[in-house]
């Protein structure tokens, strides 16, 4: 049993206190404060990170449950010098105002593009089978776990739609 959690490629020891959420572990124990705490109850998505390729809310899971897992946070997705396609699209489309929800939005959307590529259906999908047609409606449904208090939704959806459509061509 590994007793480390790998975050953006670096292994860190699992905290001793079992009460530490994965979110607090990232922010307080290893100093990666890009991931944000909005509600701490699974209601806002600000804490979204990617664990073993899958997006989850880091506030509703214990760090102790993730030994051996591989976590990607916003710090692992891109840098100011080398932003990811989604990060660039958020800049171009003004996909934020205060920016508090943005790391969660981008982690969430990064994993969502993989889900689309795998043709996982959503509540908005016409059919449960076959290729998913990318649309604003699909993106809004798939991103409904990420709230934005500033209401930058229109631009967030535009940024994601551009990258999603690009990935399809």
């Amino acid at each position, binding site marked *: 049993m590994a007793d480390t959690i790998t975050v953006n490629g670096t292994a860190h020891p699992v905290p001793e206190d079992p*009460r530490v959420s994965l979110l607090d572990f990232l922010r307080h124990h290893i100093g990666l404060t890009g991931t944000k705490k909005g509600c701490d109850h699974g209601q806002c998505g600000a804490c979204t990170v990617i664990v073993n390729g*899958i997006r*989850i*809310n880091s506030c509703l899971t214990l760090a102790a449950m993730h030994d051996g897992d591989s976590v990607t946070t916003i710090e692992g997705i891109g840098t100011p010098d080398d932003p990811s396609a989604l990060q660039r699209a958020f800049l171009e489309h003004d996909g934020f105002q205060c920016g508090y929800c943005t790391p969660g939005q981008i982690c969430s959307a990064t994993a969502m593009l993989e889900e689309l590529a795998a043709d996982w259906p959503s509540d908005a999908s016409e059919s449960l089978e076959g290729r998913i047609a990318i649309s604003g409606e699909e993106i809004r449904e798939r991103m*409904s776990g990420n709230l934005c208090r500033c209401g930058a939704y229109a631009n967030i959806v535009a940024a994601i739609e551009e990258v999603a459509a690009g990935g399809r061509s």
Partner: protein
Amino acid sequence: MRPFQYTRAPSLTEASNLTAGEDALAIAGGTNLLDLMKLQVETPGQLADINRLGFADIEATDDGGLRLGALATNTDTAVHPRVRSDYPVLSRAILAGATQQLRNKATNGGNLCQRTRCFYFTNIDQPCNKREPGSGCGAIDGIAKLHAILGTSNQCIATYPGDMAVALSALGAAVEISGEKGERSVPVRDFHLLPGDTPWIENVLEAGEIITGIVLPAPVGGTQIYRKVRERSSYAFALVSVAAIIELADGKFSRADLAFGGLAHKPWFDPRIGECLLGQPPSAALFEKAADILLEDARGYGENDFKIPLTRRTLHAVLAQVTGDAA
């Protein structure tokens, strides 16, 4: 969060031993339990992490059905090719719940055992017979918009809030349970309990019992629908939901398996609804009769009175949708 002992259960037997104590709980996805532990609604002294016990597979059963591991995530289940093609009502019900991030972590076993969203239950400063037996029920004369209209008691009027189990109830699935005394299988329709005088007992699980899987019967076909009525179109619990598996032969109902969410302390299955519809040609009058039967004993508590007409209309709409424009 109160301090607790965390143990990674090394085997199913050990998980049963660990959770047999009064102060112990199993943790799977954690999306419901940790939320409630932060609020100090749940205060286990011992947490047994069952995540690595391995029952996460989704596999065919000998009779053509499908076995969903209790540790398979809600997402694994909803996107599984066989669930999508053979049990679409289940995919639809899961996809209508929570968010992608939550469904990616939530497990099938945890989903069945998720606790009510009653505001008094989740606020430890309020009276609640479910959380603190004998303290009273805040909701009966209080904020009761989400609350039950069927099968309530004078102790508790909470609802079971989940979507997945409503589809499982319509499908006639069974819950596989393992405990110190051995293994047993319980129909989903009998898994959850009404509040009665013991609202803190929500399902048939005994101390130390662990859900290992959910078994779906061989595919039944039909038109399968999950209609969820909620206050916003995503990321909200059901006010009323209907899972329906309907088939017509020669213009008459030849299958009508319906279950309802948001109405009671359990997914609501009333065999009289199917009996009323079977063999009859669809008509608005028939749909009304089915609704009359369903709502015969319905009772509102002020804020949730609207659920009675809403349930009638939702049932009517689902039946009309499946059968064309008979309504």
